[in-house]
């Protein structure tokens, strides 16, 4: 207790937790009133909070308790983006409690009418999960950084001093010998190129011999962790204005292969979700409803309701997680890690062999023909693909010209007409032959469906069963059940399926289950979501500004680019050399390949970086295999990366290695506009806004320190386009300034408020008072014209804009339908190559054995006799990947994590429950405690992420010469990401999915040793 008090005092002095003493106050900072303990404020209600609503007993109506404001915003304790109702004590300005926003679809199945007065909702609350409830502990973390910190020792020494905002901006912009004031011999004399120095090189090529690399300004790399929606757009705006293409989010350590596999089937869609509330049978693969996925609480809600109705569903996963499987209607199917593609292909084989697929639906080659037949979508299943060996376009769809057809208008694909039996343009045919192989105009072709069938037939059901560990009869049973409900069955997958080297193909195969029964757009089937109200355009154009253009060049992680179009490739070919392997992989089909950033920068492939910004990023904690000493040492060397700035709310596990820490805002203090997840089926945009005054310090002109404030001040110092006085055009041609984050985000809010030519109503006076919005308007009055405020405030008063709940369905159809062509053949994948092996990727869904990037099967790389176990991570409903160790209530519930293994595995290793063991992998070992379970596949180790921190308050730090002591609970438990399997052939690269781009989380071989 004494330590805690001293710590808090010290924080205030040093700039951590400056604005607030921390939530601990509530628990520990009490002055006992007598020997018997502290007197409770109320003899009966005790220490409980005063309610935010008061009952008028004469009318039975609720009126707001004037001591509190209620504000609706959006959570970020995980990425479900649930609506929140935040109860704020007006006197202290502090958050008292968080509940759900009943106007937002995540928080209630029957979410409330947008026009319902807030006072009518007192007894109609929205829900929010445990993490959502504890969000105030993230905000009031005593380890919050609230002023800029600069290192005084070597990188990673955790010696810091608080500096002024002005000094911070000046040093990073102007550069020079800015580390002369440190005691780090490696950087004292270092001449650092600041933002200005780098920006002055904006017309110089990065590599004069390889113009495709773009300009020198690509030497600014922004490694963003969690940054979504319009906050991401803000970061992109800065990157474009500065002239760098290197601006990223963290998706490849999340589940990018799920995006890419989805995009391959549903063009431009990165997620499709089952209509859980109407389905009769749902399969969840590699994800547990009620424990994770998007939005976690909403999937939990819908499956809970489904369970009570007796709806059947199956969870396919090596681990039985919390939440998903209980009662009689749910079933757990344990599967070997990463073999979901084999189970899916087995089901596909059974479905095709037994005629249990919707052949009629698949035969319509365009939307017109499909709709004429009462279908709601169409596919490429009947499209012909060139399979002529050696043909220059082998693997491409056959074009009408190649088929000898007159090239008409419409799409350039060919089918065999069902009636004519002859080639016809896909765009014009009525119905097409589905299963076809033959020759057209002398070219051998097969239909996409035929390729799928042949791919499924590469293995027998028994072989698939042997691969995935699910019996052949069970595969058939699952396929039978899946095809027994018409369109009211759906298959859903998430991370567990795709975080493997074969992740793209696993995901691609799983999507086929839905396509084969034609359930898209049908009630009880699959939904592509209801979309959002946008926000980047409308009254204001936030995408453009005078002088602002898109940055150009190859990204430093070589995503979105083909190796074969590089100068490097052409030079090698010209010199008669084998162009393969490239030095590191290229990733033509994917994005946000986050794990490639640090190794690429250090290897300088294809170029080096001058400035690195980490935003809410912790690659050493999160990237499989990267939190190792060798890589950390390289990053610590200022010669490899001269300037590192971390935007963070604490001194984190990775930001502790930065030169400067930029004090960022938490989710309660910042903005974002973000669309609803597909699961809800409806259209909506949630708005996160600063519902409390940020705890961070302020600039001289009164703006709170934040990531945006930093980017604005750097931009204004350099005179970048799109920032400063004339930055944001409105539709009347007027240019508005961008000097504060509200200048930007309030205009997006206005676009949302007026979207679709159907403006929201003006905010009601009573709601203004309940949300305490008058003061907010006054503070930012100048950012909007007066007439737009009432509608903008209505959006803030509701935490966004949402269509009526009943729009989810339209009779037996979904209310929002996706009408682009679904694809069962991935032409662009089939036409591309692995830059390491030079081999073409397959274009059909298939079971592929997991392998290294150079093609070595993992079973050969780490033989089972040496490495009998496999490590799987999970992130349950009490944790977010690398955050929330500050949420002490969650830690009370689960203070540590364990090495969870099956009781049979334990017997093999001679272990008992609670034994201390070493988990060994090819890259190191960690000590932890075993928990024996039945719900874990034998041969598998699983552990919850989020434990075993070394930063984020887990280690002592020096700030301004004072020692800040750690909170030891934050280092409790075990974290195995740093010793996860890396690819043997590419330096510091995790095992990776070369198509989808996912870093592999579920293929690390391991063994256990008594500690």
């Amino acid at each position, binding site marked *: *207790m004494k330590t805690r008090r001293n710590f808090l005092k010290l924080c205030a002095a040093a700039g951590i937790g400056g604005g607030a003493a921390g939530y601990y106050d509530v*628990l520990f900072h009490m002055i006992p009133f007598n020997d*018997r*303990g502290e*007197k*409770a404020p109320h003899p*009966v209600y*005790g*220490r*409980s*909070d*005063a309610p935010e609503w008061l009952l008028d007993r004469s009318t039975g109506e*609720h009126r707001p308790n004037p001591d509190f404001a209620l504000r609706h915003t959006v959570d970020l304790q995980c990425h479900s983006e649930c609506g929140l109702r935040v109860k704020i004590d007006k006197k202290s300005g502090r958050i008292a*409690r*968080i509940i*759900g926003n009943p106007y937002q679809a995540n928080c209630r199945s029957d979410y409330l009418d947008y026009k319902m007065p807030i006072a009518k909702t007192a*007894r109609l*609350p929205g*829900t*929010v*999960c445990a993490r959502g*409830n504890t969000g*105030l502990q993230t905000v009031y973390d005593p380890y919050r950084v609230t002023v800029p910190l600069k290192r005084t020792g070597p990188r990673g020494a955790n010696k810091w001093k608080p500096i002024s905002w002005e000094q911070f901006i000046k040093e990073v912009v102007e550069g020079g010998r800015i580390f002369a004031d440190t005691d780090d011999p490696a950087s004292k004399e270092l001449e650092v190129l600041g933002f200005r120095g780098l920006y002055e090189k904006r017309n110089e090529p990065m590599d004069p011999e390889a113009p495709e690399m773009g300009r020198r300004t690509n030497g600014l790399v922004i490694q963003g962790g969690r940054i979504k929606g319009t906050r991401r757009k803000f970061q992109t705006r800065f990157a474009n204005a500065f002239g760098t293409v290197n601006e990223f989010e963290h998706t490849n350590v999340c589940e990018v292969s799920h995006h890419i596999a989805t995009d391959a089937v549903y063009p431009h869609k990165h997620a499709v979700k089952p209509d859980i509330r109407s389905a009769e049978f749902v399969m969840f693969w590699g994800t547990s409803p009620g424990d994770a996925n998007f939005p976690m*609480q909403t999937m939990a*809600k819908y499956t*809970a309701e489904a*369970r009570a109705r007796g709806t059947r569903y199956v969870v396919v996963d090596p681990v*039985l997680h*919390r939440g998903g*499987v*209980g*009662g009689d209607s749910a079933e*757990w199917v*344990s599967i070997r890690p990463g073999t979901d593609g084999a189970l899916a292909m087995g089901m596909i084989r059974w479905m095709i062999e037994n005629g249990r697929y919707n052949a009629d639906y698949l035969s319509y080659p365009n939307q017109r023909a499909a709709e004429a037949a009462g279908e709601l979508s169409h596919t490429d299943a009947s499209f012909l693909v060139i399979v002529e060996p050696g043909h220059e376009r082998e693997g491409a769809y056959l074009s009408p010209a190649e088929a000898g057809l007159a090239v008409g208008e419409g799409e350039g694909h060919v089918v065999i007409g069902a009636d004519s039996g002859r080639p016809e343009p896909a765009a014009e045919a009525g119905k097409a032959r589905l299963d076809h192989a033959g020759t057209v105009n002398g070219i051998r072709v097969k239909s996409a469906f035929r390729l799928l069938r042949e791919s499924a037939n590469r293995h027998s059901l028994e072989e698939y069963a042997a691969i995935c560990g699910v019996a052949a009869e069970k595969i058939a049973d699952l396929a039978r059940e899946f095809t027994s409900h018409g369109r009211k069955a759906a298959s859903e997958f998430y991370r567990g399926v795709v975080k493997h080297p074969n992740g793209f193909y696993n995901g691609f195969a799983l999507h086929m289950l839905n396509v084969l029964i034609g359930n898209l757009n049908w009630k009880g089937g699959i939904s592509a979501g209801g979309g959002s109200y946008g926000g980047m355009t409308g009254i204001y154009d936030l995408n453009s500004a005078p002088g602002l253009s898109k940055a150009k060049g190859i990204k430093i992680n070589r995503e979105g680019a083909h190796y074969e179009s590089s100068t490097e490739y052409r030079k090698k070919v010209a010199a008669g050399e084998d162009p393969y392997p490239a030095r590191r992989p290229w990733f033509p089909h994917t994005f946000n390949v986050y794990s490639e950033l640090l190794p690429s920068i250090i290897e300088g492939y294809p170029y080096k970086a001058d400035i690195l910004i980490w935003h809410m990023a912790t690659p050493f904690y999160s990237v499989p295999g990267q939190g190792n000493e060798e890589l950390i040492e390289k990053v610590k060397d200022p010669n490899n990366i001269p300037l590192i700035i971390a935007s963070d709310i604490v001194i984190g596990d990775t930001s502790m290695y930065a030169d400067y820490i930029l004090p960022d805002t938490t989710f309660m203090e910042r903005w974002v506009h973000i669309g609803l997840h597909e699961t809800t089926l409806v259209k909506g945009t949630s708005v996160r806004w600063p519902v409390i005054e940020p705890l961070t310090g302020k600039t001289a002109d009164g703006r709170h320190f934040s990531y945006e404030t930093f980017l604005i001040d750097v931009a204004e110092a350099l005179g970048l386009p799109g920032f400063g006085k004339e930055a944001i055009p409105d539709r009347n041609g007027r240019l508005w300034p961008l000097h504060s984050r509200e200048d930007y985000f309030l205009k997006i809010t206005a676009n949302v408020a007026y979207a679709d030519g159907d403006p929201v109503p003006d905010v009601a006076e009573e709601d203004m008072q309940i949300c305490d919005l008058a003061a907010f308007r006054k503070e930012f009055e100048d950012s909007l014209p007066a007439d737009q405020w009432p509608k903008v405030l209505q959006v803030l008063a509701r935490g966004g804009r949402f269509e009526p709940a009943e729009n989810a369905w339209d009779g037996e159809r979904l209310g929002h339908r996706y009408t682009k062509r679904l694809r069962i053949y991935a032409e662009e994948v089939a036409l591309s190559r692995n830059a390491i092996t030079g081999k073409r990727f397959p274009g059909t869904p298939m079971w592929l054995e997991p392998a290294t990037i150079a093609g070595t099967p993992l079973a050969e790389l780490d033989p089972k006799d040496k490495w009998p176990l496999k490590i799987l991570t999970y992130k349950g*409903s*009490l944790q977010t990947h690398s955050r929330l160790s500050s949420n*002490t*209530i*969650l*830690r*009370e*519930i689960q*203070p*540590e994590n364990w090495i969870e293994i099956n009781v*049979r595995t334990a017997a093999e290793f001679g272990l008992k429950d609670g034994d*201390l063991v070493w988990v060994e992998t*090819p*890259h*190191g070992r960690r*000590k932890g405690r075993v928990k024996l*379970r*039945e*719900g*874990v*596949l034998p041969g598998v180790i699983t552990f919850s992420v989020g434990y075993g921190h070394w930063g984020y308050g887990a280690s002592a730090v020096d700030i301004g010469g004072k020692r800040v002591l750690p909170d030891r*609970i*934050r*280092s*409790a438990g*075990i974290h195995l990401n740093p010793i996860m399997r890396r690819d043997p052939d590419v330096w510091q690269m995790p095992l990776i999915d070369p198509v989808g781009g996912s870093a592999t989380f579920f293929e690390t071989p391991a063994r256990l040793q008594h500690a």
Partner: protein
Amino acid sequence: MKSPDKSTISSRRKFLMGAGAAGIGAVAAGKAQGKTTNDAAAKGRTAEGRDTAYHGQAGKRWVMLIDLRKCVGCQACTVACKIENNIPDGRFRTWVPDVEIGTFPNARRAFLPRLCNHCERPSCVEVCPAGATWQRADGVVEIDYDTCWGCGSCVDACPYDARFMNPVTQTADKCTFCSQRIDQGLLPACVETCIGGARQFGDLNDPNDPVARTIRTHPVQVLKPETGNEPRVFYIGLTHELQNNLQGKPTLWSEDREAAGKGDDGTWKIEPLVEMEGADV
């Protein structure tokens, strides 16, 4: 008041069948006869007049119904309660044991939300030597924090382990159905936040209350019916393995709730393991 039908104790099946009839019938009888009230407690509170906080809401009988088919073990209720009621570290007014049942591959997870049962015949009230705990007219069992000596008799007397000693007030403490909220016509915090809709709150005396209707028309169960306390927290889907002694392997916190969280000196009871090695092995 009618005593519980002892024949239901030995047989769960009988209890399930009998619950609707015998158990709920007892509520109505209890209502008609007035509440179990500790005289000393009542005397100590006469100065407060008819303050709802003390006397409750006349004519109502608050109950909770927990539909276990809808519980996902997310612990939102556990957390919401702690924040709403400012419960010290390591103490819980409500908690949700999370266990694994069955053997591989037929394992499943089960959750059992727990809280004060606000029993029709609360065994905690009569043992209080200070008259500091009593039952309101609406069934809520309360503690007067100004009167409680902190002797702990009630903590021992509760067969459901629902009471604990609050290290801040040094009094007994427990769930009150969030009486500060329900007295304003609001819902308890745990019910508000329950993402699966498992927790429902209602008035058993109101024939139109959906919760009361479900309790009367569906098979519902209570914990340890043999105590004779007549709990007023009802469950749907409470299986035998959960009903009497929670069986199954704990998968979340340890069996001892207080092993989590901090001790009275403010230090965490769980010590981190800091050993790690990065070198190749």
